[in-house]
């Protein structure tokens, strides 16, 4: 750039010199009159200016030079008019050439050069003003012609060179842009290619972690692989996003969304990233935000998560606050998001390069902070493309504040948080802010508590001491009292008694939550308008959100038949595994043609179709299905599965006949949403609150480690194996304990009698059943003894059976004490084979018991295969379901129920292997036609 400027300066100087030369020639040939003196003066001044300009190497005298040149030219024009002297005209034309050269127009230079030449020739040949017979005039004419040709030629040549250079630069720029585009495309393709196997890695880890029969070391390794896989996926997603934005391929899907759902996701993600940092997350959100907004929710969530993650990453202790407000406009609202932290802050120098790609500021100080440095760059580009703005203010060492403003349209203007109670609410809060060491936390909470009452249009008074609160309570009239955890613990009895008079709400930490009596309600941090409104409305937060996020499955669909189509077997297994908790009938196909064949039965309710498949891809398959005759094929919902979930694809999928799309790796929350949306309501069977995940359990069923368990039973592990279903776990534990003593004696007897074959069967059953209740140590020992039995290593059996029996006894006693101590009784409706399982029993039945449907041996084999798979996964519920299904049929004219009763009995006794063996023998009997 600098070289070009220098060249340009030199070019101008050469032009001035040539012009000067031409004028000097004129001066020398000029008649001795008064004009000569004037011209001499002008030329002298002009050359001086040019000299100055040249030696200073600056263009500040440029204007003056132009003015002087204009003066000289004007003088020449006047002279040429007054004296009709052609020489002056020539000089004027030279000047024009020079002036036009500034604009670098090659054609103009040529035109003026030719005109000048023509004029000279015209005066020689036609008018005779220039008499070439006079040697002096001939000399002038020749010199003038040479001058014109020379200057014009030089100018043209120079301009041509310049233009060529510009063209080259343009080409270079274009090739650089092409390279940039190729890089972006490469990144996008690579990211896509990496995402697909990553899906398998993360998904398979999920499957392994669900398996019971793995050692703690393997579990830990697997957990680490899964975590690393997820981190890698998030980096890949960042790169993919960035390359899409850079190549202009990022499209935004404007869809209706509820800010509550977005907020909930962001808060959950933020809490998950807190780790062991001593950080408070304070959320302050305007409850009057419209319930329905139009925009790309995924991208807005991404921006919010990026900002929150960044704030958490760079803040070791203190507070990260999220504030969301709005301003109303005729087109909708301006959504303002403020994320403030009390972290390390940013220096003014770094603020300038903050939104630059691939750049992490203050890298020396933040060596421990991971990341690609793309988060903010992506966020800024996303915000910009959505028509919004981002700004940051920061004080080094004190913290930063990021502010995002997004203009959004509104689809439903009613407030997203509303207190519905018609009775006036008089609430008090008791949180002693002095317990927080960090003044930023005190400030943030202080502001939040002072604003929340006004926001929700309720009366809320904040108290920081117990005495003042008590005095207010004694005066009467309060309807609700919000208290902090430590405040509750310090006056536990008082608040428990107070809960009999009014609503007492405990603000709990998610970690280290305290057990409270049922009459005391709980909200979990962060404490803000949404959970408070939910409490005041006597509804759960989940209901308020209208979604089931943050908890596990809350419905089943045993009658639903789902077809998953993917050429990758591992992906099929992942999908099947994720759908297992819904008790749906999952059918898989490895190709588009197989999927079409399976659809001939017309009994599939929902199809998940992979986008990229060999031979016939998802789009083609879907189009073929849609072209098939019959209403069913036009309406059956098909969801695209794609690892390349970028903006724009949704439109493409919808146009291709899909109903929706789901990004891979499949997220349970997304799957849940899809199933809820696309499965007919009649097939969805809601689980009651008691059947749902531990996060939503009533507080009188404690599932935390109790002292009485002494590490013998890990209730959390047991809960994990029952898919998070507390009641199911308690039911399994209860059955385990009921039959425990009997089993113990049986093993002891077999050991004494040295009946090794049966001994191995029993310890095998003990291994799996113990693991399913969380008695890991016992399970490990049983496993060892099973292996010893199978390997005929009787010495080990002799040495360790006593220890096994002793441990078994301890587990039984600890379990019984635990159930008694905690008063946790399983709901009879939840016992295996009852309650929801009754629903499952209806799965596949057509007609009544008196008119059982007939199935062939192939179908029976399929059911038994399901049962075996469930057995392998220690999934007693699925085994029960398969049993129930088989019992509801006849095969070759005979009822299957009596045969499968034995299988069910084995399942109830946790003898999964035996159950599978019996089932296999049943199949064999039928296949042999017995």
């Amino acid at each position: 750039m600098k070289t070009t400027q220098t060249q340009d300066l030199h070019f101008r100087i050469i032009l001035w010199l040539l012009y000067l030369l031409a004028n000097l020639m004129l001066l020398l040939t000029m008649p001795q009159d008064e004009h000569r003196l004037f011209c001499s003066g002008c030329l002298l001044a002009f050359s001086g200016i040019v000299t100055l300009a040249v030696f200073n190497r600056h263009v500040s005298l440029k204007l003056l030079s132009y003015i002087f040149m204009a003066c000289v030219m004007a003088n020449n024009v006047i002279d040429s008019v007054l004296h009709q002297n052609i020489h002056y005209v020539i000089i004027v034309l030279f000047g024009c050439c020079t002036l036009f050269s500034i604009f670098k127009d090659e054609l103009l230079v040529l035109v003026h050069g030719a005109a000048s030449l023509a004029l000279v020739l015209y005066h020689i040949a036609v008018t005779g003003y220039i008499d070439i017979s006079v040697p002096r005039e001939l000399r002038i004419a020749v010199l003038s012609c040479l001058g014109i040709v020379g200057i014009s030629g030089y100018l043209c040549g120079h301009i041509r060179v310049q233009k060529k250079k510009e063209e080259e630069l343009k080409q270079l720029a274009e090739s650089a842009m092409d390279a940039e585009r190729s890089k972006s495309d490469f990144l996008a393709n690579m990211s896509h290619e990496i995402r697909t196997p990553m899906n398998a890695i993360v998904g398979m880890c999920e499957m392994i972690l669900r398996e019971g029969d793995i050692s703690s070391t393997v579990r830990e390794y697997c957990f680490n692989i899964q975590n690393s896989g997820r981190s890698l996926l998030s980096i890949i997603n960042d790169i993919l996003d960035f390359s899409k934005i850079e190549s202009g391929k990022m499209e935004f899907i404007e869809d209706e969304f509820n800010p509550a759902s977005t907020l909930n996701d962001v808060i959950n993600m933020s809490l998950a990233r807190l780790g062991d940092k001593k950080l408070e997350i304070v959320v302050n959100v305007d409850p009057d935000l419209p319930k329905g907004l139009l925009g790309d929710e995924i991208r807005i969530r991404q921006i919010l998560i990026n900002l929150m993650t960044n704030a958490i990453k760079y803040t070791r202790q203190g507070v990260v606050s999220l504030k969301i407000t709005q301003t109303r406009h005729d087109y909708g609202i301006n959504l303002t998001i403020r994320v403030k932290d009390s972290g390390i802050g940013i220096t003014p120098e770094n603020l300038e390069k903050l939104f630059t790609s691939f750049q992490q500021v203050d890298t020396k100080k933040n060596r421990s902070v991971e990341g690609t440095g793309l988060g903010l760059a992506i966020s800024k580009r996303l915000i910009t493309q959505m028509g919004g703005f981002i700004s940051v203010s920061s004080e080094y060492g004190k913290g930063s504040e990021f502010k995002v403003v997004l203009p959004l349209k509104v689809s439903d203007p009613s407030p997203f948080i509303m207190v519905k109670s018609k009775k006036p609410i008089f609430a008090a809060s008791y949180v002693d802010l002095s317990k927080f060491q960090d003044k930023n936390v005190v400030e943030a909470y202080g502001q939040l508590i002072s604003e929340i009452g006004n926001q929700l249009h309720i009366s809320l008074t904040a108290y920081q001491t117990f005495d003042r609160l008590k005095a207010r309570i004694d005066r009467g009239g309060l309807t609700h009292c919000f208290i902090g955890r430590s405040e509750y613990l310090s006056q536990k009895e008082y608040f428990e008694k107070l809960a009999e008079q009014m609503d007492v709400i405990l603000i709990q930490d998610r970690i280290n939550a305290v057990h409270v009596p049922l009459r005391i309600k709980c909200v979990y941090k962060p404490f803000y308008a949404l959970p408070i409104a939910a409490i005041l409305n006597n509804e759960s937060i989940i209901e308020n959100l209208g979604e089931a996020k943050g908890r596990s499955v809350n419905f089943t669909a045993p009658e639903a038949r789902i077809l998953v189509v993917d050429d990758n077997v591992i992906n099929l297994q992942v999908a099947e595994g994720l759908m297992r908790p819904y008790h749906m009938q999952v059918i898989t196909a490895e190709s588009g043609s197989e999927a079409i064949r399976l659809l001939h039965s017309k009994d599939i309710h929902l199809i998940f179709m992979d986008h990229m498949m060999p031979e016939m891809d998802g789009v083609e398959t879907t189009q073929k299905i849609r072209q098939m005759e019959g209403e069913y094929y036009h309406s059956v919902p098909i969801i695209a599965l794609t690892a390349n979930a970028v903006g724009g694809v949704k439109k493409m999928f919808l146009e291709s006949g899909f109903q929706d799309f789901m990004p891979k790796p499949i997220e349970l929350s997304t799957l849940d949403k899809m199933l809820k949306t696309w499965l007919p309501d009649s097939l969805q069977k809601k689980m009651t609150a008691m059947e749902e995940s531990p996060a939503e359990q009533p507080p009188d069923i404690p599932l935390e480690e109790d002292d009485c368990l002494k590490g013998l039973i890990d209730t959390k592990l047991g809960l994990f194996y029952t898919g998070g279903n507390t009641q199911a776990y308690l039911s399994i534990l209860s059955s385990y304990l009921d039959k425990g003593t009997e089993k113990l004696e049986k093993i002891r007897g077999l050991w004494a009698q040295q009946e090794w074959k049966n001994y191995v069967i029993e310890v095998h059953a003990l291994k799996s059943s113990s693991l399913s209740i969380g008695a890991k140590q016992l399970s490990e020992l049983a496993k060892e003894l099973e292996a010893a039995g199978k390997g005929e290593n009787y010495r080990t059996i002799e040495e360790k059976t006593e220890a096994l029996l002793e441990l078994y006894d301890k587990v039984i006693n600890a379990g019984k004490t635990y159930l008694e101590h905690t008063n946790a009784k399983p709901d009879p409706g939840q016992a295996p084979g009852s309650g929801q399982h009754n629903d499952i029993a209806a799965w596949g039945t057509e007609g009544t018991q008196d008119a059982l449907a007939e199935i062939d041996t192939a179908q029976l084999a399929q059911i038994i295969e399901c049962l075996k798979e469930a057995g392998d996964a220690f999934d007693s519920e699925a085994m029960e379901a398969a049993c129930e299904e088989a019992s509801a049929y006849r095969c070759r004219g005979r009822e299957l129920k009596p045969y499968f009763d034995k299988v069910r009995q084995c399942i109830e006794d946790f003898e999964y292997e035996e159950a599978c063996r019996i089932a296999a023998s049943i199949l064999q009997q039928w296949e042999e036609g017995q």
Partner: protein
Amino acid sequence: MINQCVTTECVCDLPGELLSRLNVDIIYFHIYTDSGCFKDTDEIDARNILEYMERGGAKSKSEAPSANEYKNFFQKKLEDYDEVIHIAISSGISDSVKNASLAVAKMGMEGKRIHIFDSRHLSSGMGFLVIKAAQMSRDGCSTRQILEELEHCRGKVSTSFIVKNADYLFRNGKVSKGVQRLCRLFSLHPVLYMKDGVLTLKGLEFGNYEKSGARYVKKELRHAQAIDKSRLFITHANCRLKSIQQIKSIVEGCCRFEEIIVNPASATVSSNCGPNAFGVLFLLKGQTKSLDET
């Protein structure tokens, strides 16, 4: 005693922290872009609007608050105060005085408690008047005294800016295309200043912008003995930190000010003068107290 408050507009280009210290509330101008309408300073800043314009944002228009907005703003203030002194950007360059006066007229009797003062300046130039009024109000001066002092002070404020080129002035219709091309062609950097409430061309600097900026600063501060040394504002439109430090050191080389406040200009001001424009704004002698006294 009459309890009055001072209010102003976001285009006064005073730091937020100073405004809250002086208890001065502001009303926001609006910036219209292709995607929506944003509150200047609160929702959009100089960097945002300049980046938007450089990306080729088709529409960018700044607008004073409407009469209704002024009315709501004043009514809210009158809930807490007996009288309001509102210092507005010059009527010669904005509709704010007109709209504010309309709001006052709409308010009827209540409007008599509102005093609109046309600062005849912009940016931190009107900021000087805001500081003066807020200090006097806190010192217990009457509304009349404050207004008289503001009237007196108004002529002593030096509000000038140097702009890199006339591109943004042309985009906002302040100069013709010819002037804009001339400025680009001859590397001219216009120096603008507020004269009788109107933005006027004070001079032209040629050549390298950094050196032109330095010349501008030196020229502005050449009569050091006539300048009130208590405070100087360097108000800029998204200048780089390095440039700001250079300007500051030039200022310090010319005069020793008790306080130099570097502050980004509002989006409204920045969108009119373009990136890298800056101004050194000060008072002529004997006008204000030091900010330390606040």
